[in-house]
């Protein structure tokens, strides 16, 4: 077990900077998830922690020891790769014990550790098989077993679930979480799936274009996104953004509708342009608020999702962006074409600076 400290880390390939100065503190035993759109540099950062990529600037320290120049084999970490990277010519048992055998661990100890890991993951009957004889989910477990057997300071995962089907993904999510609660090994986990991040992490690091947008606990990010990127990235369906300006004690949309701010008007901001953010589940029918036409109603049983088009916007391509999403827990008789008037609970509304994207 260990802490990991990432300080001003940078990574360039030639003239192109991929990671632009990133700092993260990871406590002993913490489960940290790096999340962000594909191509934002998550894997690169993880691979720098592993020692698979050179660090162009800044430091990575494991247990307060800077490991920038330490080759991966000396870092005492274990990594689970996206494609599992199981050795095809070794049995499952040999795959799991490979690292221990390299260290000349005693036979009895190897057997004991492999059996323990196999027990945790339910791999017992498969130990003599080869990777090609296993299903995707089983391979995924073997890859984790290989990490567990090592009993390393840090677990690193790079999108370990992205090759599994939806159902298995949900199941493995739970298993990984349980495994972490049991072993309490410091874990850094990369995914582009914000639901995975929300459900599994102690702490989420939202990355975008090589920088960190925000670090925080899942619900913190959900309730208090630091900027429009995080607000839009976390939560599904995504947050609605309505452009307009601050005026009096409320918010005026571009077409003149009024939305409440509940007295949380920032100082000296009358008439200032802003973006009003509302999560789809926070809209309510209201007397005052935004008038919009129902375009699509999508009941899923447990909830109903609606696409609304604010009055005054056309059906054209440009105005598609203006469309709003509303999620209702209760069933509704609303039909396409109907006009509704909606507004959020003012306490749950967000305000952003349209130029910087920062929260106001």
């Amino acid at each position, binding site marked *: 077990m260990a802490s990991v400290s990432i300080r001003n880390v940078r990574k360039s390939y030639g003239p192109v900077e991929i990671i632009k100065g990133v700092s993260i503190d990871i406590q002993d035993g913490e489960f940290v998830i790096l999340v962000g759109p594909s191509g934002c540099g998550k894997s690169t950062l993880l691979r720098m922690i*592993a*020692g*698979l990529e050179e660090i162009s600037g800044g430091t990575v320290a494991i247990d307060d020891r800077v490991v920038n120049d330490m*080759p*991966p*084999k*000396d*870092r005492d*970490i*274990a*990594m689970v*790769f*996206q*494609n599992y*990277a199981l*050795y*095809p*010519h070794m049995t499952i048992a040999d795959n799991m014990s*490979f*690292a221990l055998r*390299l*260290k000349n661990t005693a036979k009895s100890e190897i057997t004991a550790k492999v059996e323990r890991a196999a027990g945790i993951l339910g791999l017992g009957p498969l130990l003599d098989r080869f990777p090609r004889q296993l299903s995707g989910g089983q391979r995924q477990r073997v890859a984790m077993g*290989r990490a567990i057997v*090592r009993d390393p300071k840090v677990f690193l995962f790079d999108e370990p679930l992205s090759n599994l089907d939806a159902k298995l993904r949900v199941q493995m999510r739970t298993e990984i979480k349980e495994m972490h609660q049991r072993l309490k090994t410091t874990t850094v986990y990369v995914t582009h799936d914000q639901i995975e991040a929300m459900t599994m992490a102690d702490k989420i690091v939202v990355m975008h274009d090589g920088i960190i947008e925000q670090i925080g606990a899942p619900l913190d990010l959900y309730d208090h996104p630091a900027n429009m990127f995080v607000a839009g990235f976390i939560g599904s369906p995504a947050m609605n953004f309505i452009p307009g300006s601050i005026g009096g004690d409320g918010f005026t949309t571009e077409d003149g509708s009024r939305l409440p701010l509940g007295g949380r008007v920032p100082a000296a901001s009358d008439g200032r342009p802003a973006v009003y953010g509302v999560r789809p589940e926070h809209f309510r029918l209201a007397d005052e608020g935004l008038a919009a036409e129902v375009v699509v109603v999508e009941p899923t049983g447990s909830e109903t999702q609606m696409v609304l088009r604010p009055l005054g916007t056309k059906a054209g391509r440009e105005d598609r962006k203006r469309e709003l999403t509303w999620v209702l827990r209760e069933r509704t008789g609303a039909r396409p074409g109907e006009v509704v008037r909606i507004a959020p609970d003012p306490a749950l509304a967000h305000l952003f600076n349209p130029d910087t994207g920062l929260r106001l």
Partner: protein
Amino acid sequence: MSRPLRKLLDKAGMAVCVLLLVSPALLFFLWMLSLSLKFEIDNGAYPPILIPERFAWKNYTTILEGNSFLLYFWNSLIVTGAATLFALLVGVPAGYGIARMRAHKSAVVIMIARMTPGLSFLIPLFLLFQWLGLLGTLWPQIIIHLVVTVPIVIWIMIGYFETTPMELEEAAMVDGATRWQIFAKVALPIAKPGIVVAFILSVIFSWNNFVFGIVLASRETRTLPVAVYNMLSFEQVSWGPLAAAALVVTLPVLILTVAAQRQIVAGLTAGAVKGG
């Protein structure tokens, strides 16, 4: 009713086509076999005889009885074996290193080596061997066969290691393996099919090589192709024993070709290499 019939006809037509296509090869080797099993009279008969009434097994026994033939067989075995083993020894790691360093430009040297006529290596190396006093031993041939075998092995292994996933080796790095352990315990076992392909092609092209032998071999160090050629030009033997000798020389290769045709096809189309 007519559709299945038409399909059947199509199939039959295709089969005839293919039979036609393999017949030049098939008939040639059958004729070779026939020549090698006929007595002098039958080989000189007109019209030619395909299957003689009496088989001339003695064509084979005479060439095998002459103890020099066994010597030449042994020479071929040594030269091909040594040149291939040495090529694997240096070529497999080199293919690995080049693939991992992404040093594709260095493969150009291999390409050019493949394009160079074997004869132009012979002049300088002949002088070198003469100067070193190696002529008369098998060493010159073993060494010069490396011109053929090393490029084949490197070329095929580069292609093979490029297709094996880097992720596996990274996993091994994280698991604590040194670069030698990664090579020996992860990369090499996975590349086994590629090594088999490189081995087979290297053996075949070295075994078949003729041009190096006619210059470098003395009477005692001839390899089989040179020995058979010399039977033609100097000893004026009749067709039967000559065809038998030719067949014996090429038989190992033919058997290997049919048995390992899948590997051979894979290797030839991957690099489209040829020795000499």
